[in-house]
């Protein structure tokens, strides 16, 4: 129990630092491009007002950039400090993209930030502009590598990873396949375009704030025009790629999509719950999807259409994923756990034989460990070794195998709802900008101001959907969260949790206070 508590505290610490970091990441991804856009217009037109606009938004970007960087470094090392078993077992597959991020992206970001922030009078206009673009590209490349690493956690495949019986580790066997895995690629596009949307809403909202106050009117109109156009394209793209992302998740992490939609019992032509209040139930005790909600409004067939691309396609529920469903070839958890346990026994037998120098026994254990237990379409094969993580659940409560429904359901639905609101807002704003009415439309301006905090809510909930929805695994289907943590006394993790919480709260308040002061002063003398 103590061990579980430690894992929960380690999770809480990681969630806290990740969420705090994720307040700044999408902003950086989007604002770096917004600043580059403004500077490009400045360089093209040579007009000083565009330089002023660029420098104002750059100042705001820089204030966020610092805290984003500082919270980011904790993450890289937190994998070692709090998740040392994870780091050892999957270090090849997870550490490699992080190292590539450092070499390819992070240095580009940090190096060209120096010119972009401090080089206005030290380098030529062209070099400065190129640096601002390289800063933006570096930031986004950084996200790519992080999401490749995260994509592996969401959907590890034996096409790029193999559990090595000799080293007892999951090792990389195909780097290219790791890079181009569809889960990571759609996730990357979804996250960066969400960042662009977030930054556009911020610029639009602050511009609307100035227009409502009748201050810095020309500055605000120009900023809003760029934000409306960038935001419109980005917000639509977020939804389109989000749909593709959901399709990937439905086919690779069925427990996550089932939890996100509160689907306990699998159905053909499964609906999406547009609005609902899910109950916190154990999947093994639910008999129908209706009893799982206190209230719900459904869109019929939509989950089958979006998740499986078929009007009447079957979508498994959490109960099917525990009890199995032979009609659709879904194995019960007990079978997966049994195979996983056998793999663990083979692993132990192999090392015992190795210790004893018994080559025949080693060979037998190895052959058993890598024996194929399932062959699917297109030659897809699953071996015992691929299911070793399920051995952890042998003899355990089967309800541990799925994520909790209410938090994943709410996080997912709030994110999607806000996404649709952002599209509407940007359509409205863009039309108003084109017609020249944005300056006088106070209702739209007020809504834009009120919307400013919402993309942070949406992106945070999106991240929570992805991470809580993957539970109880750190690497889906391979490494349980409970087996990933550092063996360390609880008090250490608690102490560092509060240490970082205090720092983040204080620095977060400081950041907001500086930000409000800068916005209050406006673009004149922004630096």
């Amino acid at each position, binding site marked *: 129990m103590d061990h579980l508590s430690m894992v929960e505290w380690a999770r809480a610490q990681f969630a806290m630092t990740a969420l705090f970091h994720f307040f700044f990441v999408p902003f950086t991804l989007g604002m770096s491009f917004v600043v580059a856009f403004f500077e490009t217009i400045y360089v093209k037109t040579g007009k000083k007002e565009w330089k002023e606009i660029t420098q104002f938004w*750059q100042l705001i970007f*820089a*204030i966020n950039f610092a*805290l984003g*960087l*500082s*919270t980011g*470094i904790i993450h*890289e*090392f937190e*994998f*070692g*400090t*709090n998740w*040392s*078993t994870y*780091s*050892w077992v999957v*270090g*090849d597959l*997870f*550490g*490699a993209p*992080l*190292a*590539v*991020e*450092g*070499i390819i992206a*992070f*240095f580009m970001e*940090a*190096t060209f930030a*120096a*010119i972009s*922030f*401090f080089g*206005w*009078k*030290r*380098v030529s206009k062209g070099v400065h502009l190129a*640096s601002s673009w390289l800063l933006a590209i570096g930031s986004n490349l950084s996200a790519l590598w992080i999401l490749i690493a995260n994509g592996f956690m969401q959907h590890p495949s034996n096409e790029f990873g193999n559990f*090595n019986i000799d080293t*007892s580790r999951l*090792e990389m066997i195909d780097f290219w396949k790791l890079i181009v895995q569809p889960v990571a690629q759609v996730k990357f596009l979804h996250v960066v375009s969400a960042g662009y949307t977030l930054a556009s809403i911020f610029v639009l909202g602050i511009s609307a704030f100035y227009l409502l106050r009748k201050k810095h009117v020309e500055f605000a109109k120009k900023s809003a025009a760029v934000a409306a156009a960038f935001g419109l394209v980005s917000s639509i793209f977020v939804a389109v790629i989000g749909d593709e992302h959901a399709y990937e998740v439905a086919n690779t992490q069925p427990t996550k999509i089932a939890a996100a939609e509160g689907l306990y019992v699998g159905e053909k032509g499964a609906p999406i719950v547009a609005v609902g209040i899910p109950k916190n139930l154990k999947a093994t005790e639910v008999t129908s999807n209706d009893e799982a909600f206190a209230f719900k409004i459904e869109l019929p067939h939509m989950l089958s259409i979006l998740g499986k691309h078929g009007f009447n396609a079957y979508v498994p529920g959490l109960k099917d994923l525990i009890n199995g469903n032979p009609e659709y070839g879904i194995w019960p958890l007990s079978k997966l756990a049994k195979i996983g346990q056998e793999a663990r026994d083979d692993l*132990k037998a192999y090392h015992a034989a190795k210790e004893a120098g018994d080559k025949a026994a080693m060979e037998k254990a190895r052959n058993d460990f890598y024996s194929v237990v399932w062959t699917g379409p297109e030659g897809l094969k699953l071996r015992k070794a691929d299911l070793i993580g399920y051995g952890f659940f042998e003899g355990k409560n089967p309800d541990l195998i799925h994520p909790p429904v209410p938090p994943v359901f709410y996080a997912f639905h709030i994110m999607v709802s806000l996404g649709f609101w952002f599209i509407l807002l940007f359509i409205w704003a863009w039309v108003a900008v084109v017609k020249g009415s944005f300056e006088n439309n106070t209702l739209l301006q007020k809504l834009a101001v009120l919307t400013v905090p919402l993309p942070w809510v949406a992106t945070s909930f999106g991240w929570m959907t992805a991470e809580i929805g993957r539970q109880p695994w750190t690497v889906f289907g391979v490494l349980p969260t409970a087996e990933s943590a*550092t*063996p360390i006394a609880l008090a*250490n993790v608690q102490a*560092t949790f509060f240490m*970082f919480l205090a*720092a983040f709260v*204080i620095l977060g308040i400081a*950041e907001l*206070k*500086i930000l*409000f002061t800068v916005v209050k*002063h406006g673009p004149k*003398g922004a*630096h």
Partner: protein
Amino acid sequence: MSWAPFTVDATHFYLQVYFWIIVAVLGGLFLLMTFVQGGQSLFHTAKDEMEERAITNSLGRKWELTFTTLVLFGGALYAAFPLFYSVSFGGAYWVWMLILFGFVLQAVAYEYMNKEGNLLGKNVYKFFLYFNGIVTMLLIGAAVGTFFTGSNFSFDPVTKDVIWGTAKDGIDLRGLEAAIDFKHGAWFNLAFGVLLFAAARILGALWLINDIDNNEFPELIARIRKTIKTCFGVLVVALAIVLAGLLTMKGYAYDIHDPTGKITLEPGKYLHNLLSFGAIPLLLFAAGLVLFILGVLKTGFGNSNKGIWFSGLGIVLIGIVVFVIAGLFGTSFYPSYADLQSSLTIQNSSGSKYTLEVMAWVSVAVPFVLAYIVWVWYQMKKNGPITKEEIADPESHAY
């Protein structure tokens, strides 16, 4: 003597050596970049706001590079030597957490300290920079010291489950024992911490003298120059202790040809390592030391402001040699004094051969990255040092 083990995959071994050399180079470059931390310990030399802002702006344009080097150092260790990442970070928990905490505080301090509405006031942010410049450097130094003196852990060779604090005669403070457990080399670790801090402070002073306009800030430059002399004395004492320890202590050795990788204690191991490979490590170390001292003499005791380039190159060479003798030539780079056979070597803690091959290809990008860093550095420096006009200019994003 054969340079590659004949009992294990030679390509894998060469890749392990290659990545340890990359780690050593990154470690050396990180030591150079700690001039930022060292400079942060020199705020007391500023006597008015303009002088203080000169220091802030000079260091504030470079802190991200130090930060990034540290991140890459961590990333390279994670990918190439994941067992070290797991054992050291998960084991010496508090050392690494406090180091990280220091970097979190540093990252915001530059951007926020001179901004209106910064909540905590300038002095608190300055304290953050001092903390990062002094405490973090001492901790990093002590952590590197354990590469030679060892740590208090053991692990299961099959599951690699790490247990920290298993030495019967040891202290378990999740890494912090490195500074207080004198039975297990705390004196060496502390001396290493002081050495690193003193070197960083000297580098910081050399950098500031080079980067701040000497004509506009003559008094500040004179005060900074004075600190080099005192700090150099501290450095010489710490260096003497570290060198004496290094050359006399028993090292954690293994035979690269032995597939079991059995660890033994070898008297004079690090001296042997310095003399290995045609004594190249010793020559590089000596060259680094001479360059470092030359930089100190030119700028600390003379009137030149170019000392940073000599001392900077010197510390990179010294840093590389320190890591090379810690991990190559059949040496355990992360030894355990609790259980000798749990000690980590480049061979028993590395990633798979395939991962290292892939990462080796990726490392081809490193020279390009270094090239554009140098180019950007040149671009930012070519128009001369930081002036009062630039600091006061509202368009210069000055801190």
